């Protein structure tokens, strides 16, 4: 997919969307004008037409949605929605020694958002209801029979099986992933921080102030720190991905080598780092490398060094140490993957190369590597984006430290954007800045993924596999 092409495509999709929306509205109008009274009444009472035409199952489902929606709006939704614009105005007050809480900005934002989404959802259902009515009418007009309730029900396990299967996952993802993300995006435009905490204090919309703060260089702005952390995040992801990739492949080839026995044993030993929970192994390893840890103590005792090596306290060294320890964690995954894939390379390719007089390195760089890069392209990409957000390794090993006077907002020299974000939310309760940084992390990850994804050679037509 060349970039020019995709540009054209985008313009096309925008036009498409506009025309689709236009069609929708036209359709709604014509259905209202031309439909019979059952259809017309369905505009107000969802599912009315279906029930009148005997499709109780569908009709009642529609009606239930409407009833639930109305009840929700009146009982909960409307109150929150009304305050959504200000996020609450009533302050918390004391009556005598009793505390009377005012508006809770947090809940107003959360449930206001939920209400907006419910409204959108209801409009969608309403539209489906109209479409369904129109369809039924057309079917009846053509003299055909409508599907019975039983058939409707059965279809949920046959050609509508996707709806049954996906209902729960989609709902779950919506409530516990999409809604929170929408919420945090909204927070980026508010002044929600330690001085504006619900339920005692109100917070409110501040527009783009936080984004300005993030990009403002110098002063107490986060700008310089942000770019410094971003740079390290990218460097780290690059190193973490490729060191484990190549070393993992090397180890796999080593074990796969002809004449090496106990292949299974070697693999099992390496795989231990995957099996043991990281918070146990990494915390211990982090202590091993401490200034007063075992490794320094041993080296000192053997007289190899006369001063402890500052594995975690020297910024440069800390970064190197983290990358090295990450190899320890990362090699086994790549080894497992490479082991299987290497065997897929036809042996006669190597044979003919050997006859041509190729040495080991040439065979690797001309046969093995191109094949592996081609096949594992998507894996490399997911590894890279995974490493951009590799919380555990950084947090458990160095905790982001060492900090520096040159960095704002608690950031340390080995902090990734994600660990910095964590510190900002949990230690500083600086949600407004954390939300902005979160959005930035998202943008960086998404851009890199999209760019890389589009240049990957192995991204084939999905249907091609089948």
């Amino acid at each position, binding site marked *: 997919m060349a970039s020019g092409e995709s540009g054209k495509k985008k313009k096309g999709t925008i036009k498409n969307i506009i025309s689709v929306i236009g069609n929708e509205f036209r359709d709604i109008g014509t259905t209202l004008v031309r439909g019979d009274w059952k259809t017309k*009444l369905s505009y107000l*009472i969802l599912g*009315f037409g279906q*029930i*009148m035409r005997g499709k109780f199952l569908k009709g009642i489902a529609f*009606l239930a949605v*409407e*009833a639930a929606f*109305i*009840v929700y709006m*009146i*009982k*909960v939704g409307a*109150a*929150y929605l009304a305050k959504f614009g200000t996020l609450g105005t*009533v*302050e*918390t*007050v*004391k*009556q*005598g*020694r*009793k*505390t009377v809480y*005012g*508006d*809770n900005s947090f*809940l*107003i934002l959360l*449930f206001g958002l939920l209400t907006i989404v419910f409204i959108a959802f209801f409009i969608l259902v309403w539209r489906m209801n109209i479409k369904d009515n129109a369809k039924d009418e057309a079917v009846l007009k053509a003299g055909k029979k409508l599907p019975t309730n039983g058939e409707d029900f059965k279809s949920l396990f046959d050609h509508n099986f996707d709806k049954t299967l996906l209902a729960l996952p989609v709902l779950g993802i919506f409530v516990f992933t999409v809604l929170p993300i929408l919420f945090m995006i909204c927070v980026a435009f508010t002044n929600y921080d*330690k*001085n504006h*905490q619900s*339920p*005692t*204090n109100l917070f409110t919309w501040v527009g783009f102030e936080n984004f300005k703060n993030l990009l403002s260089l110098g002063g107490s702005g986060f700008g310089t720190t942000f770019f410094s952390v971003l740079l390290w995040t990218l460097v780290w992801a690059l190193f973490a991905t490729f060191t484990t990739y190549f070393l993992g492949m090397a180890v796999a080839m080593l074990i796969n080598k002809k004449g090496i026995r106990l292949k299974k044993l070697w693999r099992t030993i390496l795989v231990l780092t995957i099996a043991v929970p990281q918070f146990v192994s990494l915390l211990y390893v982090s*202590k091993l490398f*401490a*200034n*007063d*840890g075992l490794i320094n*103590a041993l080296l000192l005792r053997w007289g190899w060094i*006369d*001063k*402890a090596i*500052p594995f975690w*306290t020297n*910024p440069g060294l800390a970064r190197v140490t983290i990358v090295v320890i990450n190899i320890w964690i990362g090699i086994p995954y790549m080894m497992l993957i490479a082991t299987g894939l290497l065997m897929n390379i036809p042996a006669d390719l190597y044979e003919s190369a050997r006859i041509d007089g190729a040495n080991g390195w040439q065979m690797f760089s001309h046969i093995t590597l191109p094949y592996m890069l081609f096949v594992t392209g998507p894996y490399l990409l997911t590894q890279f984006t995974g490493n951009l957000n590799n919380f555990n390794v950084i947090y458990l090993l160095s905790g982001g*430290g*060492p*900090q*520096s*006077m040159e960095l704002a907002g608690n950031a*340390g*020299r080995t902090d990734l954007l994600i660990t910095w974000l964590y510190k900002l939310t*949990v*230690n*500083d*309760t600086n949600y407004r800045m954390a939300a902005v940084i979160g959005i930035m992390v998202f943008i960086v990850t998404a851009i890199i993924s999209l760019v890389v994804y589009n240049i990957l050679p192995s991204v084939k037509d999905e249907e091609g596999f089948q």
Partner: protein
Amino acid sequence: MRKKLLALVLSLVLAASLLAACQTKPAETEAPATTQENKETDAPETDAPETDAPETDAPETDAPETDAPTGGAGEIKVWVADNVVDFTKKAIEDFKAANPDYADWNYTVEAVGEGDAATNMITDVTAGADIYSFAQDQLSRLVIAGALEVMAPENEEAVKTENDAASVGAATLGDTLYAYPMTSDNGYFLYYDKSVVTDPSSLEKIVSDCEAGGKNFYFEINSGWYQTAFFFGAGAELTYDCDDSGNLVSCNSTYASDAGLVALKEMIELKASPAFQNGSSLSSATDVGAIVDGTWDSGAAKDLFGDNYACAKLPEFEGADGKTYQLGGFGGFKLLGVKPQEDEEKLAVCDALAAYLTSGDVQLARYKEVGWGPSNIAAQNSEEVKSDEALSALAEQLQFTIPQGQYPGDYWSLATSLGDSIISGELTTASSDEDLQKALQNFEDTCKSYVNQ
């Protein structure tokens, strides 16, 4: 005909659901609506909360007595550090026995230490404990987040007279007393191994002894708390003034001065020793020759050093200017706080319980159980406390310290950054005085900038 009837029934169902939803609104309103109604009725009163206060005070102090027959019921959550959970449970039983009116309440004690309590309280005040212990540096943060109620007027007098002045000061913001002092032992001093360290009165000696013995000397110079030992010792200042609601109003800092330079250079010099280790936790320390740490580790220190256990006030050091300085630092306190309550009955119980848990007898009993140094003057003067080795070392050190006031949360991370800059070698013995002064100036400016926020 049947169809029309059906249509009618359907529209009725919908109308009914609509009506039902509307009608239930005033009766069984959910969370948003209730708060809203309260607010509307409250609105006029909000204008004059201060004038209301004295009026409501009078009946309110009576409240416990008038309510005495019932005393109310419900759940009261208490958070304390893990090692005093059992002790606190026992104390609450005694409290219930002494106050039968409050015996119907259901008390739960959870192990949430001083370190976590403030963070958790701030995350969600409503799910937080009703009574919780915290270190006093969290006071303003908790007040701003609305997690701390003002001290009950009926207890104020007693708390002020029975506890040492410094601890009361630590529980006060502006002129408002917020929390109940529980211990006066949150300061630091020196634990050392007698067989390694021969003269604990000089920093240079301690370091050279540790070097000679191949042992480590722990001093957490990247903590804003321990770091002040150097700065305050050398004569630099850093304090903040707060108003009653916890907002900073001014910052007094003289870090960017000759005194600050002496302190910074001393830290850099200390770091240059191979025996130096950054840290203050005995649990993660190895080969300890000496460690600057607090009373909470006294048990662990006794276990670790065994027969060689010893403690002393912090040492003196010889500054780069040739003068001798005594390491200073903070004296700290553990406080017990009560969360703002929506129910006055419950608040009265919480106040009574907090007052009980910090009373002289209970403080003394707590000392006997876990060795926490009391803030109560009577308890401090008891024989047991006076003869405690660690507490006497602390008491000796206390005269060189200032009671820790309020510091913005950013100060602590800034101090960590300064300490890390030394440890990571950004600032070294080779750095010029100018560079060091620049770092100090930067530090001081940043400290001052927190006031305007």
